[in-house]
């Protein structure tokens, strides 16, 4: 090992160690992750070994490798801050030549949980496939090549995107990536179900194609050699080696360019300022504080990545749960209330969503009346989205289930629930505010998890309790065979919800006005 390589490996180890030092929670989290990953890796290894001789072993191993490689390619985009050695700009002041640097960084990248997991998978894959001495030799090469290609892939992708990753837009994007993962999980779930019904045979064509794509082609090579197809095996192995070389070359070139040209922050400042006018649009919003607050809230739904992510999640889940359940035929029309509940959550921790910029609001609130108008403005902004959306979801669910007679009843229930959520949300915004860190994935600052939990969970229970009269009335109507009168629930539920919201705002306003400094302190952490 050259000195550069040894130093970089030691740097990586120190970064890992220092990352764990200080915070017990983080150490516990790391150890837990390590144990879980090791367990999964071990099980996977055993599973793959057990597959030895199975007709679909090749397909499965190749696909697993390909999926893992995809993960390696995507990971740095989602977790740019996960590995500080990924950021070459930190090494820019050091007198290093590109080649030893790339070699050193590559070796350093092999330290960590991810590479260990990949190693287990690759080893398992080749054990399940290798038959004969030639195949065993190929297997050793294949494992090394696959592992190195995965790591180099991650590095090359990260280096190529470092501009994006370190810019504001990149960080905004990272916040939204949680959604991509959630949607990806749905797709995987769907895929797994399809597989369950049609068997692994359906995957064979995909496996055939993937066994020619590096780094999965390295695993494919072992399979080919085992079957005596030496030419194909060599070709696949060579393909993987070529890919590795190409990746290293690209990585080195981007590194050199990155380290010898001005960094992102300088470029951004030098950018010509846009002269485009922000369209103000016709002023549909009411004048005065109400309209001003609404306008800002609505702008933030679109422009602030954290707020946007929360909204998109709420909107998506609020639609998916009732509609998917209806699609599968197990749905109940009452699931449509889910949309109202999910969207109502956005009223919680209103001031935390402002971050420490809440001081600008605090400076302009000098009476309970000001606080009331402020909270009402925020509730109204929320309603401009949630009211039509909850209605839409309810109508769609009803249409899918064909139960039009229940529509007014469910709408009434939805509106009552929405009103209760707004009321409890306003109150807990004033009583249990907490910070939402702007960087990274966490939605709660350290030490405030309990507060967040009380705020949201307690609020939801309270909202459900507040809705109890309407729910009880609904049940009574059904039990006592007065189903023809259930339309009454629409006006009743709507009125009840509106009354709850107003009462909640009235209760929350004086509390907000007297607790301004405490709220500001609570939302300024992190």
């Amino acid at each position: 090992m050259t000195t550069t390589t040894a130093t970089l490996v030691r740097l990586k180890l120190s970064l890992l160690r220092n990352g764990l030092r200080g915070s017990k929670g983080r150490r516990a989290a790391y150890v837990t992750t390590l144990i879980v990953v090791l367990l999964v890796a071990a099980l996977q290894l055993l599973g793959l070994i057990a597959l030895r001789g199975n007709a679909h072993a090749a397909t499965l191993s190749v696909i697993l490798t390909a999926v893992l490689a995809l993960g390696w390619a995507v990971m740095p985009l989602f977790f740019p801050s996960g590995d500080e050695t990924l950021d070459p700009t930190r090494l820019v002041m050091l007198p290093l030549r590109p080649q030893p640097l790339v070699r050193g960084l590559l070796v350093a990248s092999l330290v960590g949980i991810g590479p260990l997991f990949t190693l287990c998978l690759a080893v398992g894959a080749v054990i399940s496939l290798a038959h004969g001495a030639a195949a065993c030799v190929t297997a050793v090469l294949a494992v090394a090549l696959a592992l190195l290609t995965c790591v180099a892939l991650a590095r090359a992708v990260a280096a190529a995107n470092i501009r994006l990753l370190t810019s504001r837009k990149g960080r905004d994007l990272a916040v939204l990536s949680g959604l991509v993962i959630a949607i990806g999980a749905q797709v995987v779930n769907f895929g797994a179900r399809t597989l369950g019904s049609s068997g692994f045979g359906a995957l064979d064509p995909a496996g055939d194609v993937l066994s020619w794509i590096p780094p999965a082609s390295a695993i494919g090579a072992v399979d080919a050699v085992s079957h005596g197809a030496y030419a194909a095996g060599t070709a696949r192995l060579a393909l993987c080696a070529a890919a590795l070389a190409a990746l290293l070359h690209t990585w080195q070139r981007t590194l050199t360019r990155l380290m010898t040209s001005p960094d992102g922050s300088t470029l951004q400042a030098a950018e010509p300022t846009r002269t485009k006018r922000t369209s103000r649009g016709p002023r549909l919003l009411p004048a005065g504080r109400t309209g001003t607050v609404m306008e800002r809230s609505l702008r933030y739904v679109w422009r602030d990545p954290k707020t946007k992510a929360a909204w998109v999640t709420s909107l998506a889940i609020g639609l998916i749960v009732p509609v998917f359940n209806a699609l599968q035929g197990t749905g109940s029309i009452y699931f449509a209330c889910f949309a109202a509940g999910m969207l109502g959550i956005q009223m919680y921790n209103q001031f935390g969503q402002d971050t420490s910029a809440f001081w600008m609001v605090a400076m302009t609130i000098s009476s309970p009346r000001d606080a009331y108008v402020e909270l009402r403005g925020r509730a109204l902004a929320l309603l401009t989205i949630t009211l039509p959306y909850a209605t839409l979801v309810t109508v769609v669910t009803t249409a899918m289930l064909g139960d039009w007679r229940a529509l007014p009843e469910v709408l009434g229930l939805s509106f009552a629930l929405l009103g209760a959520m707004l009321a409890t949300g306003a109150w807990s915004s004033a009583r249990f505010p907490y910070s939402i860190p702007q960087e990274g994935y966490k939605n709660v600052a350290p030490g405030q998890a309990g507060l967040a939990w009380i705020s949201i969970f307690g609020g939801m229970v309270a909202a459900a309790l507040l809705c109890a009269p309407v729910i009880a009335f609904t049940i009574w109507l059904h039990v006592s065979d007065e189903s023809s009168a259930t339309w009454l629930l629409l006006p009743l539920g709507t009125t009840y919800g509106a009354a709850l919201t107003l009462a909640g705002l009235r209760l929350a306003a004086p509390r907000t006005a007297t607790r301004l400094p405490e709220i500001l302190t609570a939302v300024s952490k992190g």
Partner: protein
Amino acid sequence: MTEVETGAGTPAVRVQDLWKAFGPSVAVAGIDLTLPAGKFIGLVGPNGAGKTTTLSMVTGLLRPDRGTVEVVGRDVWRDPVEVKSRIGVLPEGLRLFERLSGRELLAYTGRLRGLPGDEVDKRAAQLLDVLDLAGAQHKLVVDYSTGMRKKIGLAAALLHNPEVLFLDEPFEGVDPVSAQTIRGVLERYTRSGATVVFSSHVMELVESLCDWVAVIAAGRIRAQGTLADVRGDAPSLQQAFLELVGANGRDMASDLDWLGGAR
């Protein structure tokens, strides 16, 4: 030195026995301060002296453990309606609504302050012009540089024409051009009879700008009065300050003797 020149009527700020502790550490330990109206006032002190804590409590953003604060003769905590409309604040270490453009931020702040919309837009346009932000008015504040952020924060603080302006480290991290712009606006503003209270640890700046100075160290006021009073016999405010906070006479000639030696 703690004697205040009376005559200008009510002082801009009167602080009595102000205390604040964060857990075991006392940030502000019994501050008494009387700042005259119509002056350019500098609050100076080393890092961690309690400047930000004091200014936060004076402006109503942080609740003191004990003590009273009066701004233009009105209690900050008992009479927020009267106080909040009369003061402008530019805090340090707190965000702005960064996902608004500069222009939108001013429009938002002004309307939140209850000013009529047309008036807000007129004043915002002028402030953006004077502060050299007109070219970046449609850019989101999150993409602003430090100097631009301070300038847009200053514009937001001035929008409602306050009687007293509190600025926490308004020149920190600001380039010389922006600093000069900010200075020009502030000087013009105090000439109209308004009061500016700003904190800084750059003595040259305070010396050239202020006519009234309060020195704060370790949570206590070490001196307050006119610039000449506080400076006393010392050749510069910097020297006077170092003596007041007891940081003078630190000699490091014997250490670091290799620095600059044979390579």
